[in-house]
């Protein structure tokens, strides 16, 4: 009897121990996980920009010259490209935030969170196609 029990246990365990990596899940390595990663990274980046942006805007209280000197640095080409990255981060965070709300409050959204992820990506691409050429013309044009 004990041998038979042991044999049964081994046979039920065998298929599981053969798997080298965890099987695909709804979350790991998929749209759900990557949208979480992107939301965190963009959130932290936007937070630190906000700290700097409040301080640079506060210079309007110091003098016109002080404000113009600092805001002037936002107009050089490197910062111009940085502004594209900033708008890209804000766009992703905003659209994915709306996706999270739809998942939280709407059962259709919960069920179709993957569709919503790709909707976020497409809307973000449209946003960036609208913004980037216009902004770069302002930065690099005269």
């Amino acid at each position: 009897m004990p041998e038979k029990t042991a044999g049964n246990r081994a046979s039920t365990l065998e298929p599981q121990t053969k798997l080298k990596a965890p099987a695909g899940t709804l979350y790991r390595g998929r749209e759900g996980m990557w949208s979480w990663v992107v939301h965190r990274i963009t959130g932290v980046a936007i937070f630190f920009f906000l700290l700097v942006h409040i301080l640079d805007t506060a210079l309007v209280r110091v003098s016109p010259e002080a404000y113009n000197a600092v805001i002037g640095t936002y107009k050089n080409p490197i910062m111009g490209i940085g502004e594209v990255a900033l708008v890209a981060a804000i766009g992703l965070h905003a659209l994915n935030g709306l996706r999270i709300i739809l998942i939280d409050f709407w059962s259709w959204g919960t069920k179709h969170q993957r569709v919503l992820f790709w909707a976020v990506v497409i809307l973000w691409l449209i946003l960036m196609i609208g913004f980037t050429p216009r902004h770069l013309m302002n930065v690099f044009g005269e």
Partner: protein
Amino acid sequence: MATTIDSPRAPRIRRRGINWEKWGWIYMRVSGVVLVVLIFGHLFVNLMIGDGVKALDFAFVGGKLSDPFWQWWDTLLLWLALIHGSNGMRTIINDYTHNRMVNLTLKGALGLSTVVLLVLGTLVIFTFDPCPVGAPTDLLPSICGDL
């Protein structure tokens, strides 16, 4: 403190008092929706219209902030965005710091910088003078010429 997550079927213990985590959760969603409007409006007016980033200077900001509409737009933007960002950073600190002292130090620094920037930003919006005496007139917004 590091947050411990109960197993999904653990019995729910109701605690007395206000459920601050619940209201934080609601705040992130409500402020998030409003911020989408406020921030995209802010970006559109400052970066897309006219010469975009090239037009930003004291005269531009002074002109905007002498209009009560933009004063309140920016005030709401400041408070909603900074508290939203701070609460998000608090979540991240709780997720990644498990040493109690490190955790409390980071959250203390976060809370302090948030309060300082909220007070500073609000004071700047409501006390600044778009036409400071003695400043070169070519740097000032056009409204200053009418005075």
